[in-house]
């Protein structure tokens, strides 16, 4: 029985707490001030303070709240990814929202609450707390998807996301109930310890429960065959929100899945490995093949995010330490370059007045050469060319999988990456080699100061991880060995 004194440990929930406090201050201050800049500014400050608490607690192994909340390097690395995504998403949001007249403070508050939920989700080794974190993450996302209330597409996207998400949560919860019945606990380490000696019937509950938990997470990270909602939801939601939830919830889902299946279901992981193999292969193939046929860049990036979920599932299949650190590195890299690609999409969309068609990229190089160079950088990184972050992300992930003996899966993944090059090059071709249509207005796309900062962060992240990957990989590796 844990000591009662260890129950409350404010230090380890400081990052979450800071975001929540800021979210409520934003909501309370909203009616008192007319300055619209206050809410994004407050959210950025909260993100930075939270980042500070993440950095100072690095390498400090602690638990609290009756072992329900843990603070290890694994969760801190994930928190870093969420905070970077949240911060850049706030930076790219303001211009977009202001142009559509939906620049309301609730937007930023919801984004902060959702990020806090993700943090709860990764920093727990208790299935029930993971479930609660997942719900805290998801609820604000349902609302954010439908934030353009007068736009039917946005509301449709919100509804589809809500019904799919709630359906998936119910599966997850039922799985947790069965695991609880099979082992008598929801704590992952105790599940691991009791699952070895469990009776036959308990083993059955455990297996069915694990399968249902997997279904729940497969919905959340958009894995095949539960990916159908993704393109619609991503297309209809406001673009900064799409950028946010193509990265952060996926990272949270993969991190929680890794923790659950590496620690809690360690004894049954071998039985699930073939299933993960098939899921990983089908997810990336379906994502890539459907992305080939898209003319809408936002929709194309939605399918590409499905493909990236497939690459990440390789890490879950492999299940060795290198694969986990590879997945963490990949998630950080993916956060940078996917956010960068969306930032450019937002700039173009602001100019074109809401269209994401590939034609809006035509002739971008002659009007705004730098922007098209950045676009090329992000697309190359998404496709996995050196010397960008995407290359090393894939490299570490695939070499870990080879080490775990998944040679065929890696061969298929490399072939998939080759397919993906084709569609990632289409916006680059449109920007550099196509001439704009006659009636196209030739104004330059406007890059506001906040978007410029976001672009700077994402570009430097993409290049730094591509040129000096060793340091970040060392951090990712040190996160794995300290999983509680």
């Amino acid at each position, binding site marked *: 029985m844990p000591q009662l004194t260890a129950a409350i440990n404010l230090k380890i929930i400081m990052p979450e707490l800071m975001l929540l406090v800021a979210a409520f201050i934003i909501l309370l201050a909203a009616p008192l001030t007319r300055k619209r800049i206050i809410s994004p500014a407050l959210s950025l400050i909260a993100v930075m303070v939270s980042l500070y608490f993440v950095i100072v607690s690095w390498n400090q192994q602690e638990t609290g709240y009756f072992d329900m909340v843990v603070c290890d390097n694994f969760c801190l690395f994930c928190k870093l990814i969420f905070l970077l995504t949240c911060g850049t998403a706030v930076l790219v949001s303001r211009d977009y929202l202001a142009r559509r007249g939906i620049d309301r403070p609730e937007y930023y508050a919801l984004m902060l609450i959702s990020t806090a939920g993700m943090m709860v989700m990764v920093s727990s080794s208790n299935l029930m707390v993971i479930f609660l974190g997942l719900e805290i993450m998801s609820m604000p996302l*349902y609302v954010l998807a439908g934030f353009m209330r007068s736009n039917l597409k946005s509301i449709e996207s*919100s509804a589809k996301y809500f019904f799919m998400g709630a359906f998936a949560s119910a599966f997850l919860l*039922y799985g947790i*109930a069965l695991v609880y019945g099979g082992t*008598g606990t929801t704590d992952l380490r105790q599940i691991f310890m009791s699952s070895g000696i469990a009776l036959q019937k308990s083993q059955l509950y455990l297996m069915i429960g694990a399968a249902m938990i997997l279904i729940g997470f497969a919905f959340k990270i958009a894995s095949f065959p539960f990916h159908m909602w993704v393109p*619609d939801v991503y297309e209809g939601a406001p673009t900064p929100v799409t950028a946010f939830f193509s990265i952060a919830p996926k990272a949270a889902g993969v991190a929680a899945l890794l923790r659950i299946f590496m620690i809690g279901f360690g004894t049954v992981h071998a039985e699930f490995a073939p299933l993960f193999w098939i899921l990983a292969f089908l997810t990336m193939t379906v994502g890539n093949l459907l992305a080939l046929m898209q003319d809408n860049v936002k929709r194309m990036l939605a399918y590409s995010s499905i493909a990236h979920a497939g690459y990440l599932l390789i890490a879950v299949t492999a299940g060795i330490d290198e694969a986990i650190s590879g997945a963490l590195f990949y998630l950080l890299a993916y956060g940078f370059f996917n956010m960068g690609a969306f930032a450019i999409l937002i700039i173009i969309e602001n100019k074109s007045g809401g269209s994401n068609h590939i034609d809006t990229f035509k002739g971008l190089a002659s009007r705004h050469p730098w922007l098209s160079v950045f676009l090329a950088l992000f697309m190359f990184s998404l496709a996995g060319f050196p010397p960008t972050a995407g290359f090393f992300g894939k490299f570490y992930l695939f070499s870990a999988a080879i080490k775990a003996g998944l040679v065929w899966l890696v061969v298929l993944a490399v072939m998939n990456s080759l397919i993906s090059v084709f569609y990632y090059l289409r916006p680059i071709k449109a920007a550099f080699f196509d001439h704009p249509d006659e009636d196209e207005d030739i104004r330059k796309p406007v890059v506001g100061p906040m978007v410029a900062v976001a672009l700077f962060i994402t570009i430097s992240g993409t290049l730094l991880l591509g040129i000096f990957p060793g340091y970040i990989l060392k951090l990712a590796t040190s996160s794995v060995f300290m999983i509680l």
Partner: protein
Amino acid sequence: MVPVDYYIILSAFLFVIGVIGVIISRNLIIMFISIEIMLNAANLAIMAFSRHLKLMDGHVFVFLVMTVAAAEAAVGLAIIIAIFRGRESVDADALNLMKW
């Protein structure tokens, strides 16, 4: 005492009813209620296991799940109302602006 298996079979039935309801129903309200049935099936299972294993934590989980279900109801009904305002219908087939 009723064996725990009976409760689990009942809760599995409820869960399957919920899943079928979400899949075949075309009315958003009924889909929403079906999801609530799924959550409550899980609640029943947690409660039965908790009694069977003589553990108290299951009792607390049920309260947490009820809170989540309430929050889900708030968000879900708000979204359904927004859809009704937009198209005067709560039919799932009306959500057809985007197709894959």
